């Protein structure tokens, strides 16, 4: 996406928002105009920044831990047929349970601190990362695997020197999804029970009818997600370039 395209999308989005406010005549405590939200963002920058840092930290740790667990699981599945037979059905079954429904339980178990929010982010990204990377590991061309076996490669060396490098673009695809999902997990965790974070700030502002502050927190959260998606997209592109040979 070119910078000009992003700028254009931003201008169009804000214009539509402003036009809806003008035409509908909705009061500002229901739908504040973009200008009013921007003004609130500036005036409340300290409280927004403070809560942004908390959410960003939850998301970052969730991404790192969730990716690590997902990669480790995918490798285990690829290495062991027994693990594949036992774990795959469990993984699929866990996806039948909505992660959001687990938020109250996680808060009960892990408390109101950041641990339960990190756990939510981890849970929500674990499956996409595992699934994408595992698919990549399985998709190693048969000829490459045969050649490595003819050369006398052990399963471990075959994995690390052939299958994993071949699968890193798939991992990049999983990470792109994770970058979008992780903030959702963290914010849901904050909604269920927290004393800090953008999700908590949104609830707090909503409860006090400070809708402009709620929107300011929402816009900040959207910016965080977009930034994360951009950064992870760059990383995924690098992984892709590596696997294609530059």
């Amino acid at each position, binding site marked *: 996406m070119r910078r000009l395209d992003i700028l254009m999308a931003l201008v169009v989005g804000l214009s539509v928002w402003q036009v809806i406010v003008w035409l509908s005549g909705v009061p500002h405590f229901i739908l504040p105009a973009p200008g009013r939200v921007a003004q609130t963002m500036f005036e409340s920058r300290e409280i927004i920044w403070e809560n942004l840092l908390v959410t960003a930290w939850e998301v970052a740790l969730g991404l790192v831990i969730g990716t690590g667990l997902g990669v480790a699981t995918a490798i285990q599945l690829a290495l062991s047929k027994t693990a594949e037979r036992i774990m795959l059905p469990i993984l699929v079954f866990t996806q039948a349970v909505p992660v959001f429904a687990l938020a109250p339980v996680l808060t009960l178990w892990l408390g109101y601190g950041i641990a339960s929010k990190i756990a939510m982010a981890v849970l929500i990204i674990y499956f996409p990362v595992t699934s994408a990377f595992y698919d990549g590991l399985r998709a190693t*061309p048969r*000829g*490459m695997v*045969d*050649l*490595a*076996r*003819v*050369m*006398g*490669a*052990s399963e471990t*060396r*075959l994995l690390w*020197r*052939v299958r994993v*490098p*071949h699968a890193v673009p798939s991992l990049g695809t999983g990470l792109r999804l994770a970058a979008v999902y992780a903030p959702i997990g963290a914010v849901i965790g904050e909604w269920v029970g927290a004393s800090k974070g953008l999700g908590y700030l949104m609830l707090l502002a909503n409860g006090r009818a400070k809708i402009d502050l709620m929107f300011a927190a929402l816009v900040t959260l959207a910016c965080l997600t977009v930034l994360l998606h951009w950064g992870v997209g760059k990383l995924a592109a690098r992984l892709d370039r*590596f*696997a*294609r*040979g*530059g």
Partner: protein
Amino acid sequence: MSKPPGIGVTGSLTLGGQRLFDGLDLRVPAGEWTCLLGPSGVGKSTILRLILGLETGGVLDGEVTASDGAPLAPRCGYMAQEDLLLPWRDVRGNVALGADLRGEARGDVDALIARVGLAEHAGKTPRALSGGMRQRVALARTLREDRPVVLLDEPFSALDAGTRAEMQELAAEVLRGRTVLLVTHDPAEAIRLGHHVKVLTTEGLEDWPLPEGEPIRATDAPEVLSAQAALLKHLRKVRA
């Protein structure tokens, strides 16, 4: 490199409940090129996989043996139609792949790269190379393995005519003295390169007569052209 053994593949192979071949008795003489032709699906590549000890999806009622009685698969090198280069490794890394996979020292891979005429391209990744150059890298990788038996599965079939002829000459030169089994669909290639040519059909395996003289044979010699034409005619017949 240890002394190259001869290869024997005998027996029947059942694949998905059906006999792929029955009563096969393939003998590949030591230190020479044997070319194996036949219609698609008759089991040529499966024979290579059996010799390499790779999964075929079938059950062999027979045996794969080396003339010296020692295990065969660990002494085999392999080159396929696809170059099978790892895109993220440069030419050096690809040539040294086997050594890296076994945890051995790479050795002088640059000398091997120079031998296949790619000294100036040693630091490039496969995407920067032409199809012919990529197959040269694959050949250097096979040489790095230094195996007395080399199995070639249509390695030159995707190359243009000129590059293919060059690669045939290069392969014949650098693999001289090894036991080579080349699976090919190209009668001209078989007549040009083979000390022995065998045709595999559903009816069985037959030896095909070759012109006088040692390979690599001149492509424009009348007796070579005549043998190619006769082999092509035969292949068309067995296909029908």
